[in-house]
């Protein structure tokens, strides 16, 4: 009996086209990816099933965690106008250099008196954990709290520059005690911001 020989085929495929496509996609994704900003106050956000994405512009983020509150707002023009406004409210003169440096600060949490020190620091130094003590949220006498002023002046700046109502989002740590969150909400409500967003991470399907 003659053996039937199956002709052996080469298993090598031409990968050139596949490689081209893969690198094209890779380039696209690298370019569209936004670099994650280092956060001075890392928080672990609670999970939820909502799937509405957070907008990118005109939204201030109040980060609440470990009993501290940090404030952040996107947009260099807005931050610049914000520090000018805060300077007039608290009677602090900021130099042109300081304004420029502040306008690239993503998020911060210091009393207004220490703001100059933080501005003078380098980026990685500034974001060291535990360095910034948080923005004071208690009102002193008849003066509203500093957080109140930050939010209020940021709303003014957003309205002036972008003609948009600033939205407020709260990014709370999952294990933060309720009273701390309620204090922040109260500050927002005292200036008639009754609608805001809670930032959450995505939860698995079968909750």
């Amino acid at each position, binding site marked *: 009996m003659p053996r039937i020989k199956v002709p052996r085929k080469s298993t090598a495929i031409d990968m050139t086209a596949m490689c081209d496509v893969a690198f094209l996609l890779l380039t696209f994704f690298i370019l569209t990816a936004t670099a994650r900003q280092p956060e001075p106050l890392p928080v672990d956000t609670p999970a939820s099933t909502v799937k509405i994405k957070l907008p990118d512009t005109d939204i201030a983020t109040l980060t609440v965690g470990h009993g501290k509150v940090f404030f952040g707002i996107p947009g260099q023009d807005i931050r610049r106008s914000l520090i000018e406004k805060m300077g007039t409210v608290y009677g602090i003169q900021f130099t042109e250099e300081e304004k420029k440096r502040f306008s690239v600060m993503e998020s911060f949490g210091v009393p207004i008196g220490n703001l100059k020190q933080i501005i003078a620091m380098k980026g990685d130094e500034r974001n060291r954990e535990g360095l910034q003590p948080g923005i004071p949220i208690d009102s002193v006498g008849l003066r509203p709290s500093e957080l109140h002023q930050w939010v209020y002046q940021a709303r003014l700046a957003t309205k002036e520059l972008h003609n948009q109502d600033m939205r407020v989002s709260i990014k709370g740590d999952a294990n933060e005690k*309720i009273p701390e969150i309620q204090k922040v909400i109260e500050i927002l409500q005292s200036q008639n911001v009754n609608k805001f967003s809670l930032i959450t991470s995505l939860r698995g399907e079968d909750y």
Partner: protein
Amino acid sequence: MAELDTSGGGKKGGKIRTKKMSTRVDLTAMVDLAFLLITFFMLTTTLSKPQAMDIAMPDKEVKDEQQLTVADNRTMTILLGSGNRVEWYMGSVDKPLTPPQVDNYGRNGIRKALLEKKKEVIAMTGDPAKSLIVLIKPSEKSKYRNLVDILDEMAIIKPQTYAIVDIFEPEIELLKREGLYQ
């Protein structure tokens, strides 16, 4: 394909031929790597964007003037206690229509009670527009996670309306009795 012709120029008798080398490279490993990176960048770009849960709080100033009266038998009060537990009852705190019950969060906990009560209330009023009203009362001992969990529950159940309200002393007593105020 892109193979170079290296055989030209050898017309004379000497015939010194350079050896023909294949220019093909094995691209398998490169493609593997490229796809790995693609997957990574795809997942990080789409997943890094945080989710936003919109909530609206009642207006502070007008609250005192127009006290909204809500029907007892349609109102469910949920007290958020410590240890990731909740306590709920129907009606008002001094005359609850159902005795206060302790429950967990999630699918097998408070959601069952919420769905059941929503059905009952709709059957009672006979009008799908007149459905359950939920009052959420976070106690000082609960965590922020609990508040988000219960708001998430509201997004799933969709009661007619819900509100976050301050907790009262008798309700703290209820939580204390069940050991949920530690």
